[in-house]
């Protein structure tokens, strides 16, 4: 019997290491796998038995002796027995492409990665021209998963077509949106997939150097990525003359330093260059003048990771998932006040209600859901009337909401939406790079105006002023930070106006 206990951040945050120690005390050396993304079950102990891989969860160190006894007799008699892990409905109903390998084994084991179809996309790519690879990506319909949803193939074509001695592939792993963790799970559960995608991107556009810009809030991912890169170099999947092809690709992880704005691609490039993370005006596009002024592909972790399966299985297989112009799968991250939070990879088109009710099973507190924020701190708060919206980029854009990076944060009926609107402005104060006035000053004024509205100081006129300020920020800011901070603010006012009425001192607000 082989035992698995994850080394993923969430599992560790819930005591996975003490479970591992308890197993070791019983003479068992567990495999430290990645997480399956069913976070409400973490730490999830998996046991590979003669009859398949079964799960127990959530387990603590104290449960280990009882589980070991049950395994001797009748595993299903144990209270924490979950049955075969891949038959758990939450997982079984998903359409896992990017996260197909997540949780299956030791994320750092190269043999395991290759046994599960790893590096097959790369070996195909090594036999193709740059243009052929770019065509595959175009045909797949893959759009950037970071939030802006720009067609990846078109971005790559621009870099391929731009002449340059040196080009770069930059992976945006500055996953700062609250409610998102898919990049982290991917990097912690299947780092070679990201490495493979980046090498393929390098082959496609003629770049020989890549950087993963990782946020410093992810220490576990940092450690795992560095080991994975070291092993990939040793096995010649990175470096010079990759697998005897004559092709070169070097890869390095660079750590951010706690700045949300560095998730914006041009601020990220400035930061990688060793500067303040100030947003650049576009044009020039990074594809033409990017890192150190050279043509650069900047893609999100999930975009680059998807490349390996697109090359392996073909563009058509990927394109078959999804609807409209949103092709492939979306990594939905269910978070906040939710009973069953976790990672849910599905084809585009599932409704928000299905996700929070069927997968999430409602709130953690057991109270009714009041608002759902999709797409991070710059996403709108959605009231119940909008929960039947299918998750596709255009359907969300049509109601002034956004899918962004796929994070869903659920709030129960105790949420104070005026406080949330104020927080949206406050966050912009803290995290604005300061380059443009609407964002830098507008957010400060926004906090003040909301305070006045809630304090019933000339409320009607201040509401008009707040809308006017939101217009200025939305249309006058250089990037989405200032440009979209009005989304959560306006949606809170529009759909939850009662929260902006006067409250007694000390009640709810702030």
């Amino acid at each position, binding site marked *: 019997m082989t035992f698995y206990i994850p080394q993923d*951040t*969430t599992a*560790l*945050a*819930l005591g996975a290491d003490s479970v591992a120690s308890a197993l070791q005390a019983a003479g068992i050396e567990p495999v430290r796998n990645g997480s399956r993304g069913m*976070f*409400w079950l*973490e730490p999830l102990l998996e046991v590979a038995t003669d009859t398949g891989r079964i799960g127990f969860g959530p387990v603590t160190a104290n449960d280990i002796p009882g589980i070991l006894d049950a395994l001797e007799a009748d595993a299903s008699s144990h209270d924490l027995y979950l049955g075969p892990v891949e038959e758990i409905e939450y997982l079984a109903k998903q359409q896992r492409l990017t996260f197909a390998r997540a949780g299956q084994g030791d994320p750092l084991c190269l043999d395991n990665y290759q046994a599960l179809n790893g590096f097959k996309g790369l070996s195909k790519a090594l036999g193709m021209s740059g243009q052929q690879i770019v065509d595959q990506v175009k045909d797949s319909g893959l759009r950037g998963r970071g939030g802006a949803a720009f067609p990846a193939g078109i971005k790559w074509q621009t870099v391929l077509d731009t002449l340059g001695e040196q080009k770069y592939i930059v992976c945006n792993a500055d*996953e*700062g949106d*609250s*409610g*998102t*963790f898919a*990049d*982290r799970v991917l990097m912690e559960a299947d780092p070679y997939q990201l490495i493979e995608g980046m090498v393929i991107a390098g082959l496609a556009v003629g770049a020989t150097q890549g950087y993963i810009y990782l946020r*410093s*809030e*992810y*220490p*576990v991912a940092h450690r795992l990525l560095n080991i994975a890169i070291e092993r990939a170099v040793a096995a010649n999947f990175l470096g010079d003359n990759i697998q005897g092809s004559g092709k070169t690709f070097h890869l390095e992880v*660079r*750590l*951010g*330093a*706690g*700045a*949300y704005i560095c998730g914006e691609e041009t601020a990220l490039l400035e*930061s*990688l*260059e*060793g*500067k*303040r*993370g100030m947003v650049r005006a576009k044009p020039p596009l990074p594809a033409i003048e990017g890192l*150190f002024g050279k043509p650069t592909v900047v893609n999100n972790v999930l975009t680059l990771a998807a490349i390996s399966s697109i090359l392996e299985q073909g563009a058509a297989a990927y394109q078959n998932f999804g609807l409209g112009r949103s092709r492939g799968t979306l990594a939905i*991250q*269910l*978070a*906040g*006040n*939710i009973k069953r*939070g*976790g990672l849910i990879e599905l084809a585009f088109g599932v409704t928000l209600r299905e996700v929070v009710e069927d997968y999430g099973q409602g709130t*953690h507190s057991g109270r009714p859901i009041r608002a759902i*924020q999709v797409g991070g*701190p710059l996403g709108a708060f959605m009231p119940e009337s909008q929960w039947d919206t299918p998750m596709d980029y255009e359907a969300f854009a049509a109601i002034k909401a956004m899918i962004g990076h796929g*994070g869903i*944060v*659920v*709030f*129960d009926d105790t*949420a104070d939406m005026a*406080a*949330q609107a104020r*927080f949206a402005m406050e*966050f912009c104060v*803290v*995290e604005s*790079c300061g380059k443009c006035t609407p964002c830098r000053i507008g957010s400060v004024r926004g906090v003040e105006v909301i305070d006045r509205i809630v304090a019933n100081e000339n409320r009607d006129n201040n509401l008009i002023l707040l809308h006017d300020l939101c217009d200025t920020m939305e249309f006058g800011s250089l990037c989405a930070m200032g440009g979209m901070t009005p989304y959560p603010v306006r949606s809170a006012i529009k759909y939850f106006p009662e929260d902006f009425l006067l409250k007694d001192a000390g009640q709810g607000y702030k």
Partner: protein
Amino acid sequence: MNSTLEKTTDISGLIAKYKDLPGGLLPLLHAIQTEIGYLPDSAVPTIATGLNLSRAEVHGVISFYHDFKTHPVGRNTVQICRAEACQAMGSRRLEAHAKQALGINYGETTADGNISLEPVYCLGNCACSPSIRINDDIYARVDTERFDDLMSGLLIEEGASK
């Protein structure tokens, strides 16, 4: 304090290591902070000369990023997530409790130099909120009681190391 001063003179080795790395200033600042615990003002001219930058440029970078500290911090850094998913699970209550229990505000250090308290905007652990980070370890579903347990753990460790 003496050891800190001695260490500030040691950064020439780190500068030599990072000065030719493209975009090497951030990795260098991280390395110095790991070594010394913060980025002393006295190091700025040395870094600037070493990397052929102006002092203003180095200062500008240090002051831009939340991670970089210009003053000594506590032996342990405790970060409380203030982002939306954690707020939906009561992190506002948790942060109020933390400030009260430790007797300090964000950006401050306890009088015994043991704990510095900081806000953080998302630890990527949003399905099991509220989350806090203590040094390099992240903890999930931290209510006020668990917070107190974790803090007394830091005091015990502190006692054991003496």
